[in-house]
């Protein structure tokens, strides 16, 4: 499309404050009637400078910071951080801690997926399923509360292991709740797959072809829904994922419905993993944690895990003190939002915009990077290393 034609379009600001999403983010949508011609994705409203903050705190304090990167994926961030630091030290954590971490991560995946089903239904204007799924999600939060005492930020991981044990006398209760969730999952699979109105709003929409997945490095369930078999839990197994029998869910269609169905069937896989972990737990040694040194020698390490939304990557450099020299976090939402939204939305109807945006399960709090905008001229630039160094010198 030529520059002149784009200017003729009606520009609809979606965000930073918009009922479509909970967090603040801006899409400038160029519409021609109801058809989307072009989309400008402007991220950066939720930037909190966590990477910089992490370099000023010691390794223990950073666990709490990592937990607060995202409200939904709080468990996976702490586990990945702790794994990264353990890799720096070269520490092997006890078997029981590995199982407990797996339990927390899979429960988190469950609650994140149930939340996603609710959001999808809500975006389609089907409030009832939204209410139902969020009610069922309470069961997951109950299990998390039984284990950790918390519903959102569990505070379970520590460098060298976990902080609390799973109460073994309550395992039957947890299994019962998992059975309930499995039943509900089957119900939602039926609802999403067979409801005619839902199918009308999701089949063939927001198509992401298989060949574009690699080109734009899309990760997680979005990539799996486009027929790419990628899951860090199988590719580079961590914790106990290689000891348990489970499958990677892949669908070929690459549309919105495929993304929903991938997550619904992942719920069943998660429940399978959870049941196996809970069964294995009573037979394990009671050690929860090994002692980790406070000061870490100069070294560098990475840690890769599969968050509910895709591959999560931590890179840490230590410098012989109790603070990290550098910590780099690459979150799945960042890749998916920045790379895929433009392709998915072009040529679609405006009415489908919220559904397509929600179908990649965006989570802005972990994806924002610094962008400076000159308010007067509207000029925007990204912060580079030289600029940060200059800032530091001035200080």
């Amino acid at each position, binding site marked *: 499309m030529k520059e002149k034609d784009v200017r003729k379009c009606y520009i609809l600001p979606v965000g930073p404050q918009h009922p479509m999403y909970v967090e603040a983010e801006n899409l400038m949508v160029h519409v021609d009637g109801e058809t989307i011609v072009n989309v400008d994705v402007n991220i950066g409203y939720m930037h909190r400078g966590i990477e910089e903050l992490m370099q000023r705190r010691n390794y223990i304090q950073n666990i709490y910071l990592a937990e607060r990167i995202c409200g939904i994926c709080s468990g996976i961030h702490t586990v990945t951080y702790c794994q990264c630091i353990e890799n720096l030290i070269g520490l092997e954590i006890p078997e029981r801690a590995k199982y407990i971490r797996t339990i927390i991560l899979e429960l988190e995946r469950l609650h994140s997926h149930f939340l996603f089903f609710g959001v999808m239904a809500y975006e389609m*204007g089907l409030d009832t399923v939204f*209410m139902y799924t969020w009610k069922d999600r309470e069961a997951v939060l109950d299990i998390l509360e039984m284990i950790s005492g918390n519903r959102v930020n569990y505070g379970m991981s520590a460098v060298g292991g976990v902080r609390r044990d799973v109460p073994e006398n309550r395992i039957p209760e947890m299994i019962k709740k998992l059975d309930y969730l499995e039943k509900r999952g089957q119900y939602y699979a039926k609802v999403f797959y067979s409801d005619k109105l839902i199918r*009308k*709003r999701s089949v063939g929409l927001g198509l992401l072809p298989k060949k574009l997945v690699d080109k734009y490095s899309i990760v997680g369930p979005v990539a799996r829904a486009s027929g790419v078999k990628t899951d860090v839990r199988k590719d580079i197994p961590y914790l106990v994922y290689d000891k348990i029998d489970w499958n990677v869910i892949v669908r070929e269609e690459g549309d919105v419905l495929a993304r929903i169905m991938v997550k619904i069937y992942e719920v069943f896989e998660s429940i399978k993993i959870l049941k196996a972990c809970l069964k294995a737990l009573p037979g394990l040694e009671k050690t929860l944690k090994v002692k980790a040194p406070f000061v870490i020698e100069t070294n560098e390490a990475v840690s890769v895990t599969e968050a509910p939304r895709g591959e999560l990557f931590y890179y840490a450099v230590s410098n012989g003190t109790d603070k990290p020299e550098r910590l780099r976090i690459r979150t799945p939402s960042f890749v998916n939002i920045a790379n895929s939204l433009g392709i998915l939305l072009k040529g679609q109807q405006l009415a489908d915009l919220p559904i397509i945006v929600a179908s990649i399960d965006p989570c802005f709090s972990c994806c924002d990077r610094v962008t400076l905008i000159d308010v007067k001229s509207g000029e925007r630039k990204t912060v580079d290393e030289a600029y940060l160094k200059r800032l530091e010198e001035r200080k």
Partner: protein
Amino acid sequence: MIESLVRVLVYPGVGFIVFFSFLYSGIFRKISARMQHRIGPPIWQPFFDILKLLGKEDIKPEQAKIGYTFWPFVAMISIITAGLLTPIAGVVPLGNSDIVVLIYFLVFGSLCLYLSGFSSSNPFAVIGSVRGIIQMIGYEFPFVVSVAVAALASGRLLLFPAAVNMYQISNGWLCLSFPFAAAAFFVSVLAKVEIPPFHIPEAHQEIVSGYYTEYTGKKLAMILIAHMVKLFVLIALGIALFFGGSLDILTFIAKGLVLVFVVSFFRVILARFRIDHALKFCWVFGFVGMIDLFRVLLGF
């Protein structure tokens, strides 16, 4: 004189219509909340809402056009007037009425609501209004067809709704003898009051509140009153034309509550149409209603 004034202003006129449309809307919200496993607001909530809105500050956006102030008012008046032309428990508050005039008032009311969206100059409101008007093209067809079936079935060429009401009482429910027209009527009612699956002009997730995004205070109260009265009027019209008619107030309220229940059931189980799907769906039902129209005209 006083008798007719009471009939227009109190019972079964403006006072009754507004009171019961608030009540129906409260019950509607409560029922759908219970179906969704929510507690829901008390059934008096619409009364509180409107009272609160009436006391709010009146804000007019700088870029709003002149119609911003009076379209909501005109919409409310015209929909209440439509209510005065509808048989309520066998009585038409304004004496007698013509179905065509009634349809015109309902259309004009909806049109004013969409014009209020255009005049507020908000991008979301403009898109909401455009969608509303497109949707109107869809739902007016089945609505007119089904109303025509009911009117012609009673054998009166003058098309009095009150006469259809009386006809049903002596000859049985029209929705049983003309099921296709009744279905078309029901679909067009869902579309007219903009409840799922037809809440396209005010699709919260896409365009905030649609055409009334920019409104607050008294003007929003008027728009909401227009909305609630529209639901009430269409339910009253449905009773008079298809669902057996009513001569006393108790049957009228009972049938109304059953219809509110059915409408809220559909609200709960359906997702939102996209505007093109909605248009197609409405027209399909329009043609389905035509089957009954031919049956009436050809007399079999």
